[in-house]
């Protein structure tokens, strides 16, 4: 007796929701509006590390328009938990977009329990992306769950003629995203707490960065202390930095003014004015 490979199937009710959403998004876009919240199919859900999940959805609009450091609001099916959970866009393959998230509470636990073939509501892509117009050696520095935006950046930069990328990933223990970023980055360095942190790596590769014919530009996402340490390291060497910040958000699209950060230009919205801010904007030295 043979067993067929598991093929995810979408229920008839969910299929109707997907068709309705597809028509709704098409209608919005054809009238010149941004797609509203809509339902999409989950095409993959796998555990990368303990309580770290990689979810893939099928969404042609987000796949086509999503840029590195932009994010997508995800909604639970739970009427008690209405507020969106914003996740940074990771890899994009065809119509499919991947996201990496940690299970930190009941909302993300519900997401992690979903499977390929289930449906989920999304809104996006939201926020302003990393700027990668200049030809540069983009140094992608991420810590822990900060990896998705820089994975997206590595993928984007791989398609640019005049730029290259160097990934510098710091982990607590398991190097769960090295193989993903290695598909796109020209060089991958990673480290975990047994050996040091991302600054240890940056010190090690400093001469290599200086020797490169392309000027280094740091794109970073991760815990606040890590990003501040990178800012200090980069300021001393006069290396430009862009940081993708995280903050407790409300709507994700700029209407509620709940997710602000202090900048030299005043208190700005992380979701709509960011999430990407330069070192100079943040006043980090």
């Amino acid at each position, binding site marked *: 007796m043979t067993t067929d490979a598991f093929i995810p199937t979408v229920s008839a009710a969910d299929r109707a929701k997907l068709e309705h959403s597809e028509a*709704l998004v098409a209608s919005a876009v054809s*009238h010149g509006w941004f797609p509203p919240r809509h*339902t999409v199919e989950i095409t993959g859900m796998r555990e990368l590390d303990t309580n770290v999940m990689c979810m893939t959805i099928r969404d042609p609009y987000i796949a086509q328009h999503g840029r590195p450091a932009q994010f997508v609001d995800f909604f639970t099916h739970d009427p*008690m938990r209405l*507020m969106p959970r914003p996740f940074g866009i990771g890899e994009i393959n065809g119509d499919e977009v991947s996201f990496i998230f940690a299970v930190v509470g009941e909302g993300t636990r519900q997401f992690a329990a979903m499977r390929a073939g289930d449906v989920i509501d999304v809104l996006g892509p939201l926020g302003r992306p990393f700027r990668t117009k200049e030809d540069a050696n983009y140094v992608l520095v991420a810590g822990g769950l900060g990896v998705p935006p820089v994975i997206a950046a590595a993928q984007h930069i791989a398609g640019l003629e005049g730029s290259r990328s160097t990934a510098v990933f710091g982990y607590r223990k398991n190097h769960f995203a090295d193989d993903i970023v290695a598909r796109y980055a020209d060089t991958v360095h990673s480290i975990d707490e047994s050996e040091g942190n991302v600054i240890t790596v940056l010190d090690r590769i400093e001469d290599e960065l200086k020797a490169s014919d392309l000027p280094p530009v740091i794109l970073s996402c991760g815990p606040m202390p890590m990003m501040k340490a990178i800012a200090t390291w980069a300021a001393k060497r006069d290396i430009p930095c862009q940081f993708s910040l995280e903050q407790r958000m*409300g*709507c994700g699209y700029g*209407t509620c003014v709940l997710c602000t950060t*202090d900048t030299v230009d005043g208190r700005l919205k992380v979701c*709509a004015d960011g999430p990407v801010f330069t070192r100079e904007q943040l006043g980090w030295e």
Partner: protein
Amino acid sequence: MSDTTPIDLYEPYEWKHPTVVAGVPWKNPVGTASGTFQFAAVRWFYDVSQLGAVCTKGVSPVPWEGNPGVRTAEGPASNVNAVGLQNPGVDHYLVDDLPKLKKIGANVISNVAGRCDDDYAEVVAKLADSPADMLEINVSCPNVSHGGMSVGTDPVALSKLITRLRKLTDKPMIVKLTPNVTDITVPARAAVEAGADALSLINTIVGMRINTRTGKPIIDHVTGGVSGPAVLPIGLARVWQVRTALPDIPIIGLGGIDSGEKALEYLYAGANAVEVGAAALFDPIAPLRVARELDALLDERPELAAKLAAGKTWR
């Protein structure tokens, strides 16, 4: 939610059931709720001039930075927020949001915030000659240390403030009330006797969440304002009570509306119109969707629709 949104939402639409609030015609009975509306953010999602009214976020005499740190926490079927009325100030509003909204033909309610009576007076005086259609006086924000709710819970202070503002403008003036009082009909009556043309209720309810890992409040301001579907029964009861006490004052009902059906409950409770607030935080086009759903529900209720169109209410 997204599966109930009509696909023809973006097509031109002829509204069938208008309302009137303090003499101002609304093409339908649904507006946005002040704290949740930023034109710069919403304008990508739908044509806001389709709404009965657009109530903009509170403006103060000078720019306010709002509260630092974490401003939000989720509650059961709700959101707790403590923005602290961050806004770019009335002068910016007069050259930016307001003319942009009037240019697209929106019916605009300008929400006025202040830390003291002089603040409110300065903003109202500046808006008196503006193209704003209505003014809404925010005496109910729970997240600022002065002004806001401290005025709205004290009928004597409220009466003094509204009496002063009444002399500064002929524009229809709405007073937005807080539910954080024992008897909401007391400030309601004080506002109306001092010259308010209409009342809007409810603003948010004081609440908080605690992080059980640290034992500390999630929001840096400790408490915030609760909004979302969880507050629907509270808002309805307040509207019912005020309508019973004040049979003639126009009322805009809000609190927990995320569907046409829930908007209809407010109209049966005695409101002339409604506003959609927190629902826009989890569905950007919620106000327009609610307006369309309500328009269909009013088709089946000609008696209620006729009353609203004539500036009257169900009860």
